[in-house]
C-alpha cells in the first residue's frame, strides 16, 4: 500500500526566527557580526545619553511648588516654568484681557481648519474669513477698540508675540512673494527691474541688520518724539525680508512649469492673470510646497531675532525670567522649554506639508 497523502499539509507559520519581533531584530539589528557590534554600541550610547536626560527632566525633576525653594530634587526645576507660564505665553498682556488672545487663537484655529482640512469642500467663505475678516478682527481683538481696552504692543510678549510675528510675516510674505516672483519674470522692464532690485537687495543683507535698521536707524531719521510702533517696525522688516525669499522659492516653481502650459492657456483664450491663476500658479505652488514650508519654518524660528531690538518674544521673555533674582540659575530649564515649544510648532508645520503634498500628488511624483 503506497503511502499517499491525500490532503494538503496545513500551512505552517514561518519559523519564529523569521517573523515578529525576533525576526525583525535578527534581520535589522543582528544580521552580521559588524551590525551586532554596532547595535550593542549604539544601545549603550543611547542609554548613556537618555538615562541622564530622562532622570533630569522627569524622574528627579520638581513639578510641585511655587518658588525656587520648592525645587529640592536634583533634576530640573519645572516649577520655574509653571510659575511664569502665563507670562511666557502672553507676555505682559493683562490677565483679565487674555481671553481676547485665546479667542483670537480659537478663531484662527477654526479658520485654519476650514481652509486647510479636507472636510470642507468649498473654500470660498472660509478663505474670505481667514484672509480678510480674521486679520481685521484680530487687530481689534488684540490691540483694542470698539469698547475693548487698548493694550499697547509693548505689553505683548511671549509665545503670543512670536505667533503674531510669524503669522503676520507669513501672511504678508506669501502673496507678496508670488507677486515679486511674477514681477521678476515679467516682460515689462521697469517692473522686472524693480522686483529684481528689491529681491537681490533684501536677500543680500542679514535679517538681523534689517531689524537693526528698522529699530535703530529709522527713529533717527524721524523727528524727535515721532515714532512708529516698535512691533510694526519689526513686522514690516520681517515681512519684506521673508517676501524676498518667498519670491525666489515661487520663481523656482514657476521655472519648472513647461512653456507649453502657458501656450495652452493662451490658446484657450485666457488672459495673463487668468492663465496664471488657473493654470500656472496652482501647479507651480504645488511643486514649491516643501520649499515654501521650509521658508515658513525658518521664518518662525527667525522671529527670535527680535530679541536684539528689545521685543520680548518667547525666547527673550524666558531669558528675562531667568534673571529674576528669585529664579536665578534656571537657564537650562528655560531653554529646554523654549526648544520644546518651537519643536511642536515646527514639527506640526512639516507634518502638514507632507500631508498636503500627498493630497495634491496628481501623478508626476518622483
Amino acid at each position, binding site marked *: 500500500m503506497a503511502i499517499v497523502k491525500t490532503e494538503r499539509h496545513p500551512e505552517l507559520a514561518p519559523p519564529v526566527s523569521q517573523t515578529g519581533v525576533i525576526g525583525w531584530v535578527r534581520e535589522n539589528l543582528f544580521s552580521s557580526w559588524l551590525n551586532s557590534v554596532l547595535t550593542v554600541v549604539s544601545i549603550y550610547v543611547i542609554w548613556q545619553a537618555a538615562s541622564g536626560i530622562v532622570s533630569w527632566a522627569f524622574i528627579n525633576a520638581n513639578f510641585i511648588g511655587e518658588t525656587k525653594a520648592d525645587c529640592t530634587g536634583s533634576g530640573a526645576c519645572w516649577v520655574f516654568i509653571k510659575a511664569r507660564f502665563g507670562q511666557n505665553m502672553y507676555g505682559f498682556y493683562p490677565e483679565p484681557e487674555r481671553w481676547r488672545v485665546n479667542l483670537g487663537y480659537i478663531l484662527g484655529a477654526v479658520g485654519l481648519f476650514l481652509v486647510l482640512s479636507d472636510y470642507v469642500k468649498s473654500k470660498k467663505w472660509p478663505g474670505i474669513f481667514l484672509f480678510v475678516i480674521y*486679520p481685521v478682527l484680530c487687530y481689534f481683538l488684540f490691540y483694542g477698540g470698539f469698547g475693548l481696552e487698548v493694550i499697547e504692543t509693548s505689553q505683548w510678549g511671549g509665545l503670543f508675540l512670536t505667533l503674531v510675528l510669524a503669522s503676520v510675516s507669513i501672511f504678508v510674505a506669501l502673496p507678496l512673494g508670488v507677486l515679486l516672483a511674477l514681477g521678476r519674470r515679467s516682460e515689462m522692464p521697469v517692473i522686472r527691474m524693480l522686483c529684481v532690485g528689491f529681491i537681490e537687495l533684501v536677500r543680500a543683507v542679514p535679517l538681523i541688520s534689517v531689524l537693526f535698521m528698522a529699530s535703530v536707524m529709522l527713529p533717527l531719521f524721524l523727528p524727535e518724539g515721532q515714532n512708529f510702533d516698535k512691533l510694526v517696525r519689526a513686522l*514690516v522688516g520681517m515681512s519684506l525680508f521673508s517676501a524676498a525669499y518667498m519670491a525666489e522659492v515661487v520663481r523656482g516653481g514657476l521655472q519648472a512649469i513647461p512653456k507649453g502650459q502657458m501656450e495652452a492657456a493662451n490658446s484657450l483664450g485666457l488672459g495673463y492673470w487668468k492663465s496664471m491663476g488657473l493654470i500656472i500658479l496652482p501647479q507651480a505652488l504645488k511643486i514649491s510646497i516643501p520649499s515654501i514650508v521650509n521658508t515658513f519654518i525658518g521664518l518662525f524660528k527667525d522671529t527670535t531675532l527680535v530679541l536684539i531690538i528689545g521685543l520680548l518674544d518667547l525666547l527673550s521673555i524666558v531669558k528675562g525670567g531667568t534673571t*529674576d533674582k528669585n529664579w536665578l540659575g534656571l537657564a537650562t530649564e528655560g531653554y529646554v522649554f523654549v526648544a520644546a515649544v518651537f519643536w511642536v510648532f515646527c514639527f506640526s508645520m512639516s507634518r502638514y506639508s507632507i500631508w498636503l503634498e500627498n493630497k495634491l500628488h496628481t501623478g508626476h511624483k518622483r
Partner: protein
Amino acid sequence: MKKASLLAVATAATFMAGAASAATLDDVKAKGFIQCGVTTGLAGFASPNDQGVWEGFDVDFCRAMSAAVFGNPDKVKYTPTTAKERFTALQSGEIDVLARNTTWTMSRDVNLGFEFIGVNYYDGQGFMVKKSLGVSSAKELSGARVCLQSGTTTELNLADYFAANDMKYDSVLFDTADEVREAYIKDTCDVYTTDQSGLYAQRSVISDPENHVVLPEVISKEPLGPLVRHGDNAWGDIARWTLNAMINAEEMGITSGNVDSMMSSKNPAVGRLLGASGDLGAQLNLDAKWAYNIVKSVGNYGEVFEKHLGAATPLKITRGLNALWSTGGILYAAPAR
C-alpha cells in the same frame, strides 16, 4: 491685522507730525506716565517678576521719578532695551529716561548728547575665588588661571592690572557668562573675573555660594547711572535730584517707615528735603512733597539697595563703594537747600 495697524500708525504720524516735543516734564505730565528704558533682564537691576511686574534696582529709580512727578510710583511704562539700541531709544524720544546700568563715559556724555544725572551704582571689575584657595587679596593671585568672557574690556583691564603689579596669569576664555561659570566651578581655573555685580549674580547661582568669595579689589571704574537727553535741563534736574533725594534721605536717616514722623523733625535740612519748609519742590516745578513721596513709596537709597541687591537677596552684594561717604563708601549727594 498688519495693514490696519500700519494705517493707524501712518495716520497717527501724519496728525502728530509738527507737534514739536515741548519740555519733557510737560509731555510726561500730559501723557500721565514716564516711559523708562530698562534692561531686557539683569538680575537685581531689572527683570519681570512672576506677575509680569518689572522689579529691580534700576526699576526703582524710575518708580522714584514717578513718585516725584506724580506722587504715585506706578505711573511708569517700561521699555526693555538691549545694549545696542538703548541710546537710540533715548535720542529718538521713545523713552524719557534710561535707567539701564549704563557706564558713564566721556564720549557717551559729550558725543552722544546725553546727560548722566549721577551714579546710582559704582561697579568695577573684580575677582571671585574659592575660599579653599586661601587668598584674601587680588595681589596674591600671581600665577593664577583666570576664567573670563572673551571680547570684552574685561580682558584688557585684566592684562593691565597684572602687568602693573608685575604678576603672571593664564587666561581661559569663553563666549558666554554661563560657560565661564561652569568652567570656574569645574576648576578649569582658579579665578573668575568680570564686573563685581556680575560676580555676585554668578555666585548666587553656584550650588555652594558660601565657599566662594569676591575679593575686595576693584580694577576698573564702571560708574553706572541713569541718563536723559541733552538740552532739557529741567527734566535732567528732576532726575538728578530724585537720585540725590534718595541718597540724602539715607544720610539723614529718613526711611519709608519713619518718613511721616520725620516730617516734623527738628533738623531743618530734613524739613527742607521733605517739603515741610522751603520751596525746593516748586523750584523743580513739582509738588512740595516730591521727596516725601519718593521716600514714602519707594524708599531711600539704602532701602532700595537692600531690597534688590543686599544681604537678604540671593545676590548678597555688599555696599562697598556704594556705601555713604560717611560710612566708608563714596556716595556723596549735594545738599538739598
